[in-house]
């Protein structure tokens, strides 16, 4: 059998491992954190059906329960080099390229190293890290999960403002792309906030609301219809602190054509997705680093799980911003490509 390494035990990596194992291919799954699925377990509920994130994560983790899947947590892959770069071809008994993952050799590598959230400090004018009332969407998710949405004084907030496109669709952050899932995440969090705090006023500031997925538009409607969430079309240009620990924001209500200001207990910045450190570094080492540090695929239509490098496959949010559903499907596609294109017959024996 060929030796297969999967880098990253997120949704894409786990799904790929499960499918490969179901086809009797032993895989080794590398994860830099102590646990798999860190980006799921820090969520409360998942759009569009408000599924319990912990339950979904548990179901995914159960897929790893297979003796031919080796999960290595706390193992960061720092080195990923193909034989034709390092020149250790002589070590390779058959002559096909092998991959050096840290110090071990593998025939096939699946890069599933994922994303990292945009660092909101880079948008200084929005006051994250400066004013206590400004939070990221991840911190908001944590407050929702713990059922403790509080303002900077630890009190129940009377107003919450969400701002879309922080670090996405923004030339000043260097990210021209749309992160794709913040729109619906803000709607989800707005609904959650209203469920926990029915008397709290909730506002969402947006440039465009992209409700592209199944059930997203319905969630948007539910937010308006059942929860009274207010949507304002305008980008917040500045946020400042008030003497009592709240946040004052400035925007234009572009549908009225007038500048607008308001004070809120909380300002939640919907941070976008960027290529993770691992994605950037490993994609660069393998020379498949594409725009914005994401991994470049061979072809966006026909070979989206393959890379230009022989034996190197790519899946999930290391390629571009992706939802959980997309990542799972993508991991499955990658497994299929490995089983077919990757020709799993043994060519290299250690």
């Amino acid at each position: 059998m060929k030796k297969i390494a999967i880098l990253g035990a997120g949704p894409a990596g786990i799904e790929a491992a499960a499918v490969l194992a179901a086809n009797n291919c032993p895989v080794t799954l590398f994860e830099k954190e102590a646990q798999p699925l860190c980006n799921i377990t820090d969520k409360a509920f998942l759009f569009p059906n408000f599924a319990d994130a912990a339950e979904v994560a548990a179901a995914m983790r159960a897929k790893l329960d297979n003796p031919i899947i080796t999960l290595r947590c706390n193992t960061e892959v720092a080195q990923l080099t193909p034989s034709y770069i390092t020149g250790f071809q002589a070590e390779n008994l058959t002559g096909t390229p092998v991959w050096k993952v840290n110090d071990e050799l593998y025939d096939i590598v699946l890069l599933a190293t994922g994303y990292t959230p945009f660092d909101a400090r880079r948008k200084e004018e929005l006051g994250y890290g400066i004013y206590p009332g400004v939070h990221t969407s991840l911190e908001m998710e944590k407050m929702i999960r713990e059922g403790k949405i509080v303002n900077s004084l630890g009190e129940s907030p009377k107003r919450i403002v969400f701002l879309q496109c922080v670090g996405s669709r923004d030339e000043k952050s260097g990210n021209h792309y749309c992160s794709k899932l913040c729109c619906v995440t803000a709607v989800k969090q707005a609904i959650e906030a209203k469920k926990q705090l029915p008397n709290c006023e909730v506002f969402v500031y947006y440039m465009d609301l992209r409700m592209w997925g199944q059930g997203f538009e319905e969630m948007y409607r539910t937010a308006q219809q059942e929860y009274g969430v207010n949507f304002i079309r305008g980008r917040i240009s500045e946020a400042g602190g008030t003497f009592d620990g709240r946040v004052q924001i400035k925007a234009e209500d572009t549908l009225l054509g007038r500048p607008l200001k308001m004070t809120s207990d909380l300002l939640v910045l919907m941070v976008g997705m960027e290529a993770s450190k691992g994605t950037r570094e490993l994609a660069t080492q393998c020379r498949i680093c594409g725009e914005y540090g994401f991994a470049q695929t061979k072809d966006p239509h026909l070979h989206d799980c393959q890379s230009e490098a022989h034996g190197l496959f790519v899946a999930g949010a290391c390629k571009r911003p992706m939802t959980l559903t997309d990542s799972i499907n993508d991991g499955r596609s990658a497994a299929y490509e490995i089983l077919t294109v990757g020709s799993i017959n043994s060519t290299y024996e250690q």
Partner: protein
Amino acid sequence: MANFGFKISTPRSIDLDNADRTLYEQMLEMVPSYRYCIGCGGCTATCSAGQFTDFNIRKTHFLFSRRQYDKLTTDMLPEVDLNKCMLCGKCSLVCPRGVNTRGLIVEMRKLLLN
């Protein structure tokens, strides 16, 4: 012909068929980033002049781009009076699309007000 006291009202609609493109083309040459605007209103929100007057830079931009030059000159609506801009450039700092908004005002003044 007898005068019956009727007159024909000019339609309110923006007529892109008969609009004059010349100034628009000139603007694109001078400020190529002009066409990147997605109308988020960040510029207007942060505009120094807009805090104290009814000046709205986003509207001036869209009136120009829809070739409604008379609204910016002869009509000189207070919202789009180009003279109100102080050229401080804060709008350029917040623009997520990197539009040279300050340059835009300077060029609009040159093209329309001179």
